[in-house]
């Protein structure tokens, strides 16, 4: 078995193992940590689709994370206050059904991604990085100044939303929901990476001229990847907001964008399971180092610096070596 596949399996086992062990030992806090890691992993898998496969350095992916979060927040808020979101031209009411919320989060993120992507992909290099950041900042400041949904203070949702047949307030059950979604996303991304689209997209990242020479336009590939990427990260945002039962503009900040990038790079850019390792490492560091010192982010910074300078391939690069060609 290839080292990479082995590491993938180990990671999955680790997630399930930690959650189950925490459940048996009745440590709900640890289950919550595992859930957080799973959600961050989804966000990272989303970014990795555009960044790792497409080479698109988006420094504004928090916009999708935040859109997903606010989709949850707005729908649940109107449900819990029994007010409609829109009365004219047709009535839209809030909802507390998770599948519906996820659907809205995904669709809204995808639509916004079409807009941001179509405009941003007209630039490249550092300009692309900056314009994606700019769009995220627009939404960030908008959220801060819009008082209806809490503005800077954010919005609290009293009770976790509903999933048919499950008690979502039970930590292990919510973990199961998030982790299952993670596995689903990983499956789809894995298939996409090995598909016709994946072959062309990853070729475009390496050499745009070559893709044109075989008759196709990189722009369409990139835009598609960007939209899929945004939709996945949007789903993560909705899950995260539900986990904390709280949504605030911080989800849209560039710090959040940076953190999502950290998940991707810690695990290994371009590896399907990379962000899973990266998110797990990040949560581990936050928990372990945070316990040692209030200023744990200094150590996070140092580790990140070390990885960028000396272990460029992230955890997967260290353990599984150079990426094996998919044959």
């Amino acid at each position: 078995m290839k080292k990479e596949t082995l590491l993938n399996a180990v990671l999955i086992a680790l997630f399930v193992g930690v959650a189950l062990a925490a459940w048996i030992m009745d440590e709900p806090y640890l289950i919550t940590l595992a859930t957080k890691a799973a959600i961050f992993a989804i966000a990272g898998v989303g970014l990795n689709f555009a960044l790792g496969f497409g080479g698109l350095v988006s420094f504004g992916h928090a916009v999708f994370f935040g859109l997903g979060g606010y989709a949850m927040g707005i729908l649940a808020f109107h449900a819990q206050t029994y007010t409609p979101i829109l009365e004219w031209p047709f009535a839209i009411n809030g909802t507390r059904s998770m599948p519906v919320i996820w659907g809205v989060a995904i669709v809204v993120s995808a639509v916004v991604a079409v807009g941001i992507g179509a405009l941003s992909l007209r630039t490249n290099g550092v300009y692309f990085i900056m314009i994606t950041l700019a769009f995220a900042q627009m939404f960030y400041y908008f959220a801060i100044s819009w008082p209806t949904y809490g503005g800077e203070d954010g919005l609290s949702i009293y009770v976790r939303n509903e999933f048919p047949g499950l008690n979502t307030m039970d930590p292990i059950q919510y973990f199961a929901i998030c982790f299952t979604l993670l596995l689903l996303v990983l499956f789809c991304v894995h298939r996409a990476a090995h598909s016709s689209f994946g072959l062309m997209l990853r070729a475009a990242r390496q050499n745009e001229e070559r893709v044109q020479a075989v008759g196709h336009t990189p722009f369409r590939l990139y835009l598609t990847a960007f939209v899929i990427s945004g939709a996945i990260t949007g789903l993560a945002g909705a899950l995260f907001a539900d986990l904390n039962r709280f949504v605030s503009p911080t989800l849209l900040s560039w710090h959040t964008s940076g953190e999502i990038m950290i998940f991707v790079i810690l695990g290994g850019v371009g590896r399907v399971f990379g962000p899973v390792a990266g998110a797990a490492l990040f949560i581990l560091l936050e928990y372990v180092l945070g316990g040692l010192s209030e200023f744990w982010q200094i150590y996070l910074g140092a580790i990140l610096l070390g990885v960028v300078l000396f272990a460029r391939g992230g955890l997967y690069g260290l353990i599984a070596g150079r990426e094996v060609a998919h044959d």
Partner: protein
Amino acid sequence: MTDPVLEIRGISKSFGGLKASNNITLDLRPGEIHALIGPNGAGKSTLIKQITGNLTPDSGSIYFNGQNVSHLSTAARARLGMGRTFQISSLAMDYTVLQNVVMGALGQRGNIFRFFNSVMKDADLIKVAEDALEQVGLEDCRTFRTSDLSHGQRRQLEVAVALTLRPKAFLMDEPMAGLGAEGSQRLIGFLDKLRHQAPIMLVEHDMDAVFALADRISVLVYGEIIATGSAEEIRSNALVRSAYLGEGDAA
């Protein structure tokens, strides 16, 4: 005379005060190898870029198989059958040899927006890819990473990818560049047979290859075609001799 596959009509391009292409008219006929030669800085690369669509001419037009392609993108022209190889190998370096060629076959087939198929296990694509690799002699290297290939092998791979496109014409920019004597000989033999699949417009500096292969030769100097003709005609053309050798020299 059968219709030319590729027609370049009156192409002109200036960069500021420099006229890189000055009213160039050329064509490429079925079954021929048409070599484009000229001293450094003559504007050969600029011309190729205008044919493939990477550069827009200031005036003039390009006709491919009777169709005006002057306003089409590079990708669109590639889809119509312009098979191009690059002066500096332009391949997906992290991919294996097979992946690069499958990519070409996939590009030709179209419909790249499929997300759930296993492209490297697609029997049709693999067949086309392996045929192309066999033609250029790289079939034993299919699992090698492209970045690990030698310079000559990369050239071969470029040609293989071009083959998968089932091109109606080849545009080759200095394919001999960097090849040793043996590699050049092999490529010359290969190109000789290739012309029957599709005509080749060949930019080259290697005069042995040019005189061995070319049915017609066009000479480009300071952005202008100063002569077009058979090898013999070009060899004895006074203008060409002075352009290459200076005034009053015997070859």
